[in-house]
């Protein structure tokens, strides 16, 4: 079962060296344990561009599709047996990156 673990924050790319080291250690651990699928940090929402090609002509808009105080600052995609395991991994991830995380299953 695959889960998206989203990092919710009001800033991006602001991790202290300690937090970076904690995230690296956590990433190495979940790779070794076979939970790792993918992960990454994201640039600020102000760098986002929305594209809408539903009408056949691609409409390009500056900025995120949803303005909010807190946003997706990064994410993990993890493999876990069930939600209990995913929640435990997410708790360790939240501690490592010093932010709240949201756990959501893939279909």
């Amino acid at each position, binding site marked *: *079962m695959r889960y998206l673990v989203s990092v919710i924050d009001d800033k991006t790319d602001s991790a202290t060296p300690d937090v970076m080291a904690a995230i690296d250690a956590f990433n190495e651990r979940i790779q070794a344990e076979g939970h790792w699928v993918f992960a990454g940090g994201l640039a600020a929402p102000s760098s986002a561009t929305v594209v809408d090609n539903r009408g056949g002509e691609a409409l390009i808009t500056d900025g995120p599709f949803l303005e909010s105080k807190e946003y997706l600052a990064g994410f993990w995609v993890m493999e876990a*047996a*069930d*939600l*209990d395991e995913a*929640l435990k991994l997410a708790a360790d991830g939240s501690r490592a990156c010093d932010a709240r995380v949201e*756990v*959501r*299953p893939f*279909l």
Partner: protein
Amino acid sequence: MNVADVQDAITRAHHGEWARVIASLTKRFGDLDIAEEAAAEAFAVAVERWPADGVPPNPGAWLTTTANRKAIDRIRRESKRDDKHKEAQRMWDDPAEPAVPLGAIDDDRLRLIFTCCHPALAMQTRVALTLRMVGGLTVPEIARAFLLQDTAVGQRITRAKAKIKAARIPYRVPSAEDLPARVPGVLAVLYLIFNEGYLTTGPGTDPVRHDLTAEAIRLARLIRALLPDDGEVAGLLALMLLTEARRTARVSAGGELVTLDEQDRGAWDAALIAEGHRLVRERLAAAAAGVAPGRYQILAAINAVHTSARDVRDTDWSQVLALYDQLVRVDPSPIVALNRAIALAELDGPEVALAAVDRLDDALAGYHAYHATRADLLRRLGHSRQSRAAYDRAIDLAGNTAETAYLTRRRDQLG
């Protein structure tokens, strides 16, 4: 067998077997939704057939077999539409990740309770789901108990089942390592169900919903049987039993609350009290051996002191106060401080208690019991005018019909 006997057998089977049927079907088919529907259908078939065919020798086995057949029928119907269920079933049947074995502490119903009370579900959802899946209450019954619309409760349960499936909330008893963190969540659900039954809110409702208190006790007994060494499980069961024992004495024939000091103690249920006292003694022995008691055990002990006094004048208030002091250390909430002050009034007088209560104004100004306590202390001190104002406030905030009636009479008796 006459109609009433058959009706009785169906009710008994519903109480005794509903959770078992749901639990065994959920284990087999890996889907709460299928289990719930099939169990409901099996009971409907029983209602239809038992009066004519007679009650089967083993009603539980009959219901499980019938429900299994109904579930397979549904899966066959659906498999013509898609093959997703096969995937779902494969995942759930996969025995690759067994929880750390708990020895004898494993039971399908226990898995069911832990799934329904999973921390990833909102508290109200856990309560509704537990009453439906474990308690066997219907959606309208749950809606009535919590003064909600049927559709709201139905949606809450439907969404919960969908989340359990989509997020793969596991259907298992947590491992021994995780159990201490998970049991309190289950107990909180049961205590909430019990309290809603004991102090039912809402105008025009019965002041006590015996169906809810009885259900909470039944579920607590079940968990106690499954986790006999857990002190807080024993404590919560004892607390419920000692509270339930006073149920009939607590509301007068006229529908008015009767406070502890005015209750007819002869009307208390001696069997429930004896059972509650046994549990409290068991926990006192554990505490003497160095196991620190949690809040349910301390609350149970306070209730044991009250129920040990044949007359209110025999109440060992210093013991009650000592237990509240212990409770404050575990749970330093203003409501605990309020109840401690009530015991303090019996030992050190209403003036000392009033000073302690007044310090809680910031935290409890919106809580009816705070104003009712103040009103009573002010009355005992002879401050009629202030007491009347406090009663008015308490009456405005009280949601329970028996409490409102009691507070109104007390106010109107002021000189």
